[in-house]
Every structure is written in C-alpha cells, then in structure tokens.
C-alpha cells in the first residue's frame, strides 16, 4: 500500500514536471516554433527601428526618421521571390484598402523593404509596386543600400534571411507596425488580414483622436 502511495505521487509529479517543461519551452503554449517565439519576444522587447537610409522606387534617398510622427506598416520582401512575397504584398494591399483614406499618408505610411539591395534597384521596385497597386507615396517600396545597416535592422526585427543556391532566399514573413517614435508595436500574422487591419485602424484612430 505504501509503495502504491509513492508511485501515485510520482505519477502526479511527472505529469506536472512534463507539463511544466512544455509550458516553459513554448512560452506558455504560445510559441511552438522558433519563429513564433521570436515574435513573442519582439512584442515584449519592443525594439526601436534603427537609423537606416532608404532608397525608394522614386529614387528618393532619406533616413527612416523622416517618417517620425506617423505610424509605419512594414513588410520585408525581395522582388524575385515567387512564393510568399506576392501573397504578402496582396495581403498588405488588402489591409491598405481597409484603412480609412483620411488616415492614409497623414497618420500612417505603408512600407515594403527589400532585403535584396543588389537586384532590387529603384527601377525594379517601381515596376514591382504596380503589381499591388502601391502609389509609391503612401505605400512606398524601398531598399537599404548599405548592407551593414540592413543586417542590423534584420537582426533587431528578427528577420531571418537564408540565401539558397538558386538566388532565392528563405525568410520569415509578418506585418510589422512601428509607432510614430519608431518603436515596434506589433508583429502580426500576415495571413490574418482582417485581424491585422483591425489592429492597425484601432491604433491609428486612438492616435488621431488625441
């Protein structure tokens, strides 16, 4: 009987220990992949957008701090990408459509940043933006010509880019929302368009209401 009692306690303990391991290992059953863990971490840390120089599809060159005072909705792409980036662009276009037009350009700017500066020159970006109905002004497409600046940004925002042998990249994708002080506020699932649009609109509205 005594033996049985110990054994039962051990069963309870091992279930508890096992669940604890899974709980800690997945940030409370939230993050089962390194990617979701990174997102979760980012939302906690809220990094500031590092100072980088952008070159956009209109050949304009300016620092990111030019956007100060406005929200920036970001994605990271490369134009030669055939799988996920077009989807990312289409979904961003849908979010763009859902944001009331009085905010567009005034309180919020959309920005697609290329992490393939060698191939994505302003001319290429200018052609690419037309596929998604981007006007080049309130939704800009830009590259970061300086590789060290680019790498720092990717590192800060947790974007992993692995080049393969065929000139393509394997990379993680999300919507990033940066507030008017350049602080990262949200990392959103790019497949949940309506949810992302709701988040963006409520943030911008709150800001505009002040």
């Amino acid at each position: 009987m005594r033996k049985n009692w110990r054994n039962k306690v051990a069963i309870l303990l091992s279930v508890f220990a096992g669940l604890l391991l899974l709980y800690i290992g997945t940030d409370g059953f939230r993050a089962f992949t390194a990617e979701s863990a990174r997102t979760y971490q980012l939302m906690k840390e809220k990094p500031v957008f590092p100072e980088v120089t952008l070159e956009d599809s209109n050949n304009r060159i300016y620092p990111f701090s030019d956007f100060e005072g406005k929200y920036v909705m970001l994605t990271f792409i490369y134009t030669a990408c055939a799988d996920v980036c077009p989807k990312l662009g289409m979904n961003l276009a849908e979010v763009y459509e859902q944001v009331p037009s009085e905010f567009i350009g005034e309180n919020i700017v959309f920005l697609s940043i290329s992490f393939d500066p060698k191939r994505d020159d302003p001319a290429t970006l200018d052609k690419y933006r037309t596929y998604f109905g981007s006007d080049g002004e309130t939704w800009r497409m830009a590259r970061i010509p300086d590789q060290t600046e680019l790498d720092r940004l990717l590192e800060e925002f947790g974007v992993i880019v692995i080049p393969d042998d065929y000139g393509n990249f394997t990379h993680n994708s999300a919507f990033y929302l940066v507030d008017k002080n350049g602080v990262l506020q949200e990392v959103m699932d790019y497949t949940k368009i309506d949810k992302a649009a709701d988040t963006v609109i409520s943030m911008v509205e709150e800001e505009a209401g002040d």
Partner: protein
Amino acid sequence: MGKTRYGIVLFVLLLLPPIRLGMESIMIVHMLIQLPLLILAGWLTGDVVVRKFYDVWDRWNGNGIPGIILVFFITLFWMFPRTLDEALTYNSMEFLKFISLPFVGLLLRGSWEKLHTLGKTFIYLNYLSMFGLFAWLYIDSPIQICNNYLETQQKVLGWGMLFITVLMILSIIHYVFTDHSKENVT
C-alpha cells in the same frame, strides 16, 4: 558492464565537435539519428544506475508509469520544431539536449519492462500517431518551420518520419496477427 562502457563511449563520440556539428547540419540526421542515439546512450548506461538505486527506483517507479510519462513529455518536447531550432542557436538548449535525452534513455530502461501490455500498447500507439502527425506537419507545411533549416530539409525529415510511422504500423499489424498463445502475456 560491457553495455555501460558502450553507452559512455557512444555519448562521448556524440559530444565530439566534428560529429556533433556534422549531425546537426542536416535536419533529419539531427532529429532521427542524433537524438535517438543520445537516448540509446542513456539506455545502455541505464542498467547500472537502475541497479545501484534499485530500492528508490522500485518505490517511486514501481509500475513504470511515472517514468514513461516523463519519457513521453521530454520526447514530445524534442519533437517541436522550436526546440530543435534553439538547440542550434542557444548553448543552454544544446546542453539541455545532451542531458535530458540520455536521461530519457535511462528512464526507458527502468520503466518499459515494468509496464503491462496495456500501457506499452497505449504508449506505442501514442508515438505512432505522433510520428504520423509530425510527418504530415513537416512534409505539408507551406511555411519554413525552423529558422535554421531550409524548407527542403524539413520535407526530408517529414518523409523520414513517415517511414518510421509506416514501420510502426507494419510492426503492430505483425504483432497482433501472429500467434502468441504460447507466450505469457501480462
């Protein structure tokens, strides 16, 4: 005693940087060869440990259920894409891997034999469906699950897991349809 020595040698071999890094550079080798070998190393050394602490072991793990529950959770933990990824990124996770998996082997050594047929079969079927599920997840996922491995590698791992699933199905079919009337099944 010989078994224990093999276990220790195996563990040291797996620790050697060229072998360790080589294995970890390929996703399927990492999950389906390195991790099981670590468990095997623990299993081989398990005899000695179990014998040494027989009394404690028998008191707390008399029916083998507590041990097998831990085995289940720890192995499930190492099947997550995230843990595999983080073992490459963080040294602490790598350390945890080299500690926890031999521990799994040890637990297995001291628990499996004690389980009744019912418990064994239940655990077996659990792993069967887990391997099936993860095979599906790794083969079919349109997104890159691990940041350190390419999507193609993840598909290879998926097929590897599917292979294991099929083997497990064939083996249980073989078991239930061959005659056991002369054995003593408990």
